[in-house]
């Protein structure tokens, strides 16, 4: 079917010599009356509005501009104008390769959603995945190949490359392919095939966020270089040593969904996995931990080692690694942890994100002793989500610097920006006879390449993936390539003399390698069709040569450097910007960091005590210096961070981010979005350390000096506590905005929700017969990952406002995640609270609008009618939750290509009107219309709001509370349910489920504080 549909696209391209897409954009968004700007329609509209009477009197009838309607010539079956369709495919956001459903509309994908059937990601999708659709419509993507910095045709480029390769083959020079983890088996085998032709060729894989030590450790302990599949859903005790598995570690969506399953307190039987987190900075995972123990970076391995010793003792294991380093934290803490783990043998899980194989070996050892292998860790059917090998990388870098490499192909990597010593590397890369980059954009590395052969966006091409052994997925195109870009697999095939298309290549690969592994007995055609339709296929995993645990591998750790007096620099990825490849994406830059709530920058996080000692405020610019490398960053004071640590996010300061110079409204007092270096943030990669075969993400020899400059950060939440400042505190403790309970209380406390007394001044003359839409949000499940924020932004055409507007507290996100700290700043507890329009039954906003632009629907929705709004902002003032968003300016929609992501089912708001969460009313209306057609009642769960759909933790439930069987109605009756600001009787339609804290002993806090 997509074939016919391609024909349609082509015909449209050929029609109108000019750029068909612009053409499309024009048709789609011409004369949107709610937009000011160049379009004649807009002027028409202004005219009409401004001079209604004059117009009536003079012109008699002001005609709207003539609009053309261009039907298809041949209607492909299954494609109807104005009707959405879904293609199952694979997310290209990172190598975790979650399952996707790409929502298409009138020939273009407009939204990505998690594939609920997918066995790995299970319907969730992270912020990056949600935002990655913008990559497809990125107007700065390379439209065609480049040779020596000039655009060329594929034919020329291919011929030249072929010629050069022949030369290299004759001279027997080395050929290297450097990629990130290639999720696609088809591409992998293609690369292998390509390299076969050369005497000395190797495919080197490295990941910006490396998991190499884990694989190396397993080679030592299990004789196979595998990355286990971590099954958090099976764990009852989780110990994480600096692994941010909910935020950025290996496969966050998968883990988050497992994690929330392991902590589903209302499931039968109730689960409440106990989670301890050892870390030096405040990570997303740390915010959810029942017990967060902050240690200096060099202390964490020591802690692991001592834990290993204790567990080994319990297990009576023959090997007792002598703990070289001093115990960094009170014994009883480790003892308690060891006990908990031991009691939960086979139902516990220890994960470790530390650099260096030896720590990982210890981690494996502990998991082995606890009998977790085969239970909570699967190495028989391991994960393929990270394949990077830092040893090979080191070797390759040396080769390159030594000028030994004859030809280097780069795919999905940007070594100059991502690796330490980028400058030298750049110099030596430039010397390579044949450097080919497949990068879709001009980044730091690709301009050095002799040939840039841009690869397609994942949504434009055929491909496949095998995230974990036995789950193979097909990624099918949702649109025809927009430019002249070419899928990587085709390029490699072409260079190995095979002119087949990506489709043929993937298909034939599946026929040869995947089809034989199928579980059933289907014919290939059927198998293929089914897999394409479902988006994945369960097949027999490749047999793994895994040996039993080899205790000899366990060696006492080389005594970790005892902490030097100086600050340690910790380099980390943020959930919003895990990888520099996304630095082109304005949505991700404007997404508030889940913990710091900062946007459009990276910064140097300091513990409050440390900042105090150095007399630094938020926004003071400091200079970080390590052996010649120096960068300047504004300070951000981060409660809960270790005092000896300064933490800086990677993946910033990329040249692609220079494009944001014009982001944001233009006016007198406007301030630019990029920083003084013309880019967003500064690149901290030079501080990484590529040493003894692993990338180190922390340095203990950083020099931090104040520069006296200031750069205030664009933070979306100015005040972070529920307790008001002391000098203004009337007493009465923290505000009951976020409510918590404990496991005991939950055990004893009434499971049913006691309905609060209702005070009514007037007779209740608005009964909600029929539907009554409502939402519940489980604060215990919510990890604050912020996927919902982007999902909402894509679904509802929420504009990007730019850094300056964020600093003025004018960000437009309809759903925000409030983050509150409690407890002493040294060791805080964190609560995440998604906050959007509460659709109050007694909505304060509704009574005050003079023009009835916001009114209540008969189904309990608080409706905002953009085209009626005159912008008095009275509703915004009177909203106790301050969830209304005002269009202070005409937020730019100049990029017509990017406009193709706009959801045609949602009005594009103009300047001067109020907007806010609508409970995705467009989805409600659509589902209702469908149900009406099939004349049946709506099913529970049929309507999913964008935020709910994407939530990996399944924290959000939306539905009809008038239907007692609906999930939302049941959760509304939960004993944990409360409403925010119930006391002012706004009667919100959003119910929150209290956070459940594991009951704590007094030692905890100290344990943390002392770390």
């Amino acid at each position: 079917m997509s074939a016919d549909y391609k024909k349609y696209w082509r015909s449209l391209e050929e029609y109108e010599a000019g750029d068909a897409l612009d053409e499309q954009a024009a048709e789609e968004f011409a004369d949107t009356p709610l937009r000011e700007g160049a379009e004649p329609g807009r002027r028409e509209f202004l005219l009409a509005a401004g001079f209604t009477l004059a117009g009536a009197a003079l012109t008699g009838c002001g005609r709207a501009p003539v609009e053309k309607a261009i039907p298809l010539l041949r209607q492909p079956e299954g494609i109807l104008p104005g009707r959405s369709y879904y293609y199952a495919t694979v997310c290209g956001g990172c190598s975790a390769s979650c399952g996707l459903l790409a929502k298409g509309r009138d020939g273009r994908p407009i939204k990505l959603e998690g594939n609920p059937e997918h066995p790995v990601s299970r319907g969730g999708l992270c912020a990056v995945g949600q935002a990655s659709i913008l990559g497809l419509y990125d107007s700065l993507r390379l439209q065609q190949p480049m040779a020596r910095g000039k655009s060329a045709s594929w034919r020329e480029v291919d011929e030249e490359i072929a010629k050069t390769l022949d030369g290299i083959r004759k001279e027997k020079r080395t050929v290297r392919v450097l990629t990130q983890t290639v999720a696609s088996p088809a591409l992998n085998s293609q690369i292998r095939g390509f390299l076969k032709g050369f005497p000395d060729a190797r495919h080197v894989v490295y990941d910006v966020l490396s998991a190499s030590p884990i694989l190396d450790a397993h080679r030592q302990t299990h004789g196979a270089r595998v990355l286990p599949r971590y099954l958090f859903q099976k764990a009852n005790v989780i110990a994480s040593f600096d692994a941010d598995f909910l935020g950025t570690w290996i496969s966050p969506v998968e883990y988050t969904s497992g994690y929330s399953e392991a902590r589903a307190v209302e499931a039968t039987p109730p689960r409440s996995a106990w989670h301890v987190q050892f870390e030096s900075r405040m990570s997303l995972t740390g915010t959810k931990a029942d017990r967060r123990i902050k240690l200096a970076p060099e202390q964490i391995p020591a802690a692991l080692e001592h834990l290993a010793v204790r567990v080994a003792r319990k297990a009576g294991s023959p090997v007792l690694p002598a703990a070289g380093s001093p115990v960094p934290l009170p014994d009883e803490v480790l003892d308690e942890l060891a006990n908990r783990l031991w009691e939960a043998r086979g139902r516990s899980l220890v994960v470790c994100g530390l650099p260096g194989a030896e720590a990982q070996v210890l981690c494996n050892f502990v998991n082995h002793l606890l009998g977790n292998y085969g239970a909570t860790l699967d190495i028989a059917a391991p994960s393929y989500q990270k394949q990077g090998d830092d040893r090979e990388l080191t070797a390759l870098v040396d080769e390159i610097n030594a000028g030994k490499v004859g030809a280097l192909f780069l795919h999905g990597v940007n070594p100059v920006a991502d690796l330490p010593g980028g400058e030298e590397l750049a110099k030596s890369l430039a010397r390579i006879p044949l450097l080919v980059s497949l990068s879709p954009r001009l980044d730091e590395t690709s301009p050095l390449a002799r040939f840039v052969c841009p690869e397609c966006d994942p949504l434009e091409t055929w491909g496949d993936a095998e995230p974990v052994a036995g789950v193979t997925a097909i990624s099918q195109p949702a649109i025809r390539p927009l430019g002249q870009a070419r899928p990587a697999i085709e390029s490699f095939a072409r260079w190995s003399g095979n002119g087949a298309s990506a489709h043929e290549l993937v298909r034939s690969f599946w026929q040869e390698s995947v089809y034989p592994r199928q579980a059933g007995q289907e014919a290939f055609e059927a198998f293929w069709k089914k897999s394409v339709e479902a988006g994945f296929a369960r097949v027999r995993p490749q047999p793994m040569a895994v040996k039993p645990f080899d205790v000899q591998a366990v060696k006492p750790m080389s005594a970790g450097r005892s902490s030097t007096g100086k600050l340690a620099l910790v380099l980390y990825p943020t959930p919003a910007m895990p990888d520099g490849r996304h630095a082109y994406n304005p949505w991700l830059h404007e997404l508030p960091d889940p913990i710091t709530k900062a946007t459009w920058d990276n910064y140097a996080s300091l513990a409050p005590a440390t900042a105090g000692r150095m007399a630094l405020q938020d926004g003071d610019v400091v200079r970080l210096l390590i052996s010649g490398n120096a960068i300047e960053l504004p300070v951000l004071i981060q409660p809960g961070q270790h005092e000896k640590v300064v933490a800086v996010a990677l993946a910033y300061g990329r040249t692609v981010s220079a494009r944001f110079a014009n982001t944001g409204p233009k006016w007198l007092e406007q301030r630019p979005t990029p920083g003084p270096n013309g880019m967003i943030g500064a690149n901290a990669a030079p501080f990484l350390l590529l040493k003894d075969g692993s990338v180190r993400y922390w340095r203990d020899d950083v020099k931090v000096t104040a520069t006296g400059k200031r750069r205030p950060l664009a933070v979306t939440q100015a005040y972070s506590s529920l307790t008001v400042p002391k000098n203004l505190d009337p007493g009465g403790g923290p505000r009951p905005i976020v409510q918590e309970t404990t496991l005991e209380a939950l055990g004893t406390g009434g499971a049913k929700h006691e309905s609060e007394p209702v005070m009514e001044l007037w007779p209740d003359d608005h009964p909600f017969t029929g539907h009554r839409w409502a939402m519940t949000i489980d604060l215990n499940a919510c990890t604050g990952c912020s996927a919902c924020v982007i999902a909402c932004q894509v679904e509802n055409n929420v504009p990007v406002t730019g850094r300056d507007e964020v600093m003025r507290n004018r960000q437009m996100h309809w759903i925000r995640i409030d983050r509150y700290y409690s407890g002493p700043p040294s060791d805080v507890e964190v609560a995440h609270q998604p906050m959007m329009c509460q659709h109050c039954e007694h909505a304060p906003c509704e009574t005050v609008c003079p023009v009835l632009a916001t009114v209540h629907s008969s189904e309990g929705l608080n409706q905002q009618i953009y085209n009626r709004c005159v912008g008095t902002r009275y509703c915004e003032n009177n909203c106790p939750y301050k969830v209304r968003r005002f269009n202070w300016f005409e937020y730019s929609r100049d990029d017509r290509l990017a406009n193709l992501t706009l959801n045609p089912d949602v009005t594009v708001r103009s300047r001067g009107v109020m907007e806010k969460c609508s409970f995705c009313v467009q989805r409600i209306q659509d589902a209702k219309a469908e149900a009406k057609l099939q004349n049946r009642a709506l099913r529970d769960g049929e309507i999913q709001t964008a935020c709910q759909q994407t939530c990996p933790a399944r924290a959000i439930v939306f539905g009809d509370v008038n239907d007692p069987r609906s999930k939302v109605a049941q959760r509304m009756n939960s004993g944990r349910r409360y409403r925010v600001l119930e006391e002012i009787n706004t009667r919100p339609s959003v119910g929150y489920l209290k956070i459940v804290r594991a009951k704590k002993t007094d030692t905890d806090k100290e344990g943390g504080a002392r770390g």
Partner: protein
Amino acid sequence: MKSGILTIVLSTGLFFSALYLAARAGTVHIPGNQQDYQPVQPIAYSHRLHAGELQMPCLYCHFSAEKSRHAGIPPASVCMNCHTLVTATFGAVRAEEELATKEQRKPRTLVSPELQKIYDALGLDANRKPDPARTMKPIAWTRVYKLPDFVYFDHRAHVGAGVICQTCHGPVEAMERMRQVPDLSMGWCVNCHRDATKNGVAGKKVYASIDCSTCHY
């Protein structure tokens, strides 16, 4: 005396201009109201002929009206269902046949210039077979019924509820060229919705919501 004439002249002038204004007043529209809009289309397609005389059901061509938000304009391929064979008006063909029999020769196939446009669009050759040499060129119709972009009208729901097309589109079967019959004002929509909820549609009981978010989101 002079002033007398002047008065007469002026008053007659006033009288006629008053007449003119009165006549004009009926057709005055406030801007945005496109009532009676009847643009010339690239192909002189006649609803009167197809929907009227030939009594083709609306949904035969506008098939997406029952499955999608938009009723849509039929793809040229739909036209070809008939017009591969029917190439000219019945009258013309008949005349040609008579002439042919008179002149004892095979009747030539006539192709009406309007239909020719469809064939060109589809890039067909003289025998209406696809001709690779020619490029296909979509037909750019002029849109008649146009709601502002902040209004979401859903054909699905209305067709599904059994609202007949003429309720909103007027006597299409009598129109040579398509014309916008209603003023498409919000009042017009709401009145119909209220009426439908009160009296039902085609004897069926329906609930036509008048919530804002029924059409605005």
